[in-house]
């Protein structure tokens, strides 16, 4: 893709197309900006704020920010990494993220992005919220403990699978994922293990049954290489058939 427009990120010129976001331009140039609710295959959501960058002195969400010339973007200073780490620490203490007991461990984007920010402790006081699981679906499990409300399943199920399965209900700390079925159970909804939405969860909230530890701990995506090198978990699932729907501002 040729373009003569650029902005600068960490001292490097990043080319961009008109209407392209800072995130998309950076990823295309091979520069990693941490993200959780964003999946480059789908329109941005801008809810997790982990992709925060400093643009000309202001903190901006790079997945929703349209690139412009003369932008000076800080993606890697200690100050911006501190901000991201704080956001991640809040995500960790709000849920129940018991990595040693989670079958997503090693393939989990939340964990990998936390490693990227050099997070060693949760810092804050844990909420230890009482949350359940929904095992009602024959092929898929849902763990409320691990859901970070990124909204990816909601968006992908609606926009790609053309189904009405997921929604985020409630407000603030009471927000939770809900399923569209008479019983409220995932197993009674239209959800299928072959849906695109079954592949996009960045954490271990939506997991297929019967395959838990097929890839042993130690051989997983983020066990030996950082996410800035190997990319998103979901990229693995979409490696054969990338799903692109519309531009960043559809």
């Amino acid at each position, binding site marked *: 893709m040729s373009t003569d427009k650029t902005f600068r990120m960490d001292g490097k010129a990043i080319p961009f197309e008109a209407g392209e976001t800072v995130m998309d331009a950076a990823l295309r140039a091979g520069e990693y900006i941490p993200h959780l609710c964003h999946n480059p295959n789908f329109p941005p959501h801008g809810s997790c704020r982990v992709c925060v960058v400093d643009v000309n002195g202001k903190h901006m969400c790079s997945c929703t920010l349209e690139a412009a010339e003369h932008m000076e973007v800080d993606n890697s200073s200690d100050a911006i990494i501190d901000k991201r780490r704080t956001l991640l620490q809040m995500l960790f203490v709000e849920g129940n993220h*018991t990595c040693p007991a989670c079958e997503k461990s090693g393939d989990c984007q939340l964990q990998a992005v936390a490693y990227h920010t050099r997070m060693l402790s949760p810092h804050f006081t844990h909420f230890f919220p009482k949350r359940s699981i929904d095992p009602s679906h024959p092929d898929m499990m849902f763990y409320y403990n691990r859901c970070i409300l990124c909204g990816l399943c909601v968006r992908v199920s609606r926009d790609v699978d053309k189904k009405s399965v997921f929604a985020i209900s409630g407000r603030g700390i009471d927000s939770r994922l809900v399923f569209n079925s008479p019983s409220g159970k995932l197993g009674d909804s239209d959800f299928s293990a072959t849906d695109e939405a079954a592949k996009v969860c960045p954490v271990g909230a939506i997991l297929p049954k019967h395959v838990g530890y097929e890839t042993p701990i130690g051989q997983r995506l983020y066990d030996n290489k950082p996410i800035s090198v190997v990319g998103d978990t979901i990229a693995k699932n979409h490696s054969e058939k990338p799903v692109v729907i519309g531009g960043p501002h559809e």
Partner: protein
Amino acid sequence: MSDLQQAAPLRKDKLIVSTAALCGCFGCHMSLLDIDERILDLVELVEFDRTPITDIKTVGKCDIGLIEGSVGNAENVEVLREFRNHCDILVAVGACAVNGGIPAMRNQFELKDCLEEVYIHGIGVDNPHIPNDVEIPLLLDKVHPLHEVVRIDYFLPGCPPSADTFWTFLTNLIAGKEISFPYSLIHYD
């Protein structure tokens, strides 16, 4: 004072290290021992005070305290506060110490329900009753990571942190260097 008590004075030229296991599985201590023959190099640099390795039961003034496990009962609180009072540098070692880990999964349930499940309704329980001997430390309502009880200076995540993580941490710290881990040495599982 007997000869035996005088025989092992703590050497002033070595840093003094104490360790303790609170509500955990002892896996972090096993991982520390996995430094294998490097423990001979380590004891040239440090002197172990209270630790399950020496079986010394009381903690004296220490340079470094390593705590494995989370805080799940009244005795854990007491030991942790003792360590904080006696250690210049206190380190939370392993997933349980850092964020509650596996023991904190009981926070999903009422303590009463946990005890009844194990001691009253459990399969094969003989003479069902909840143990109430005064010698048994009272369980806390919730399990807590260490930093929710005392100030912690360093965190070593991992279930357990690998032997190389311990080795890198201790040798960097003792040498007065900035503690820096390669990617493969920091993991939460």
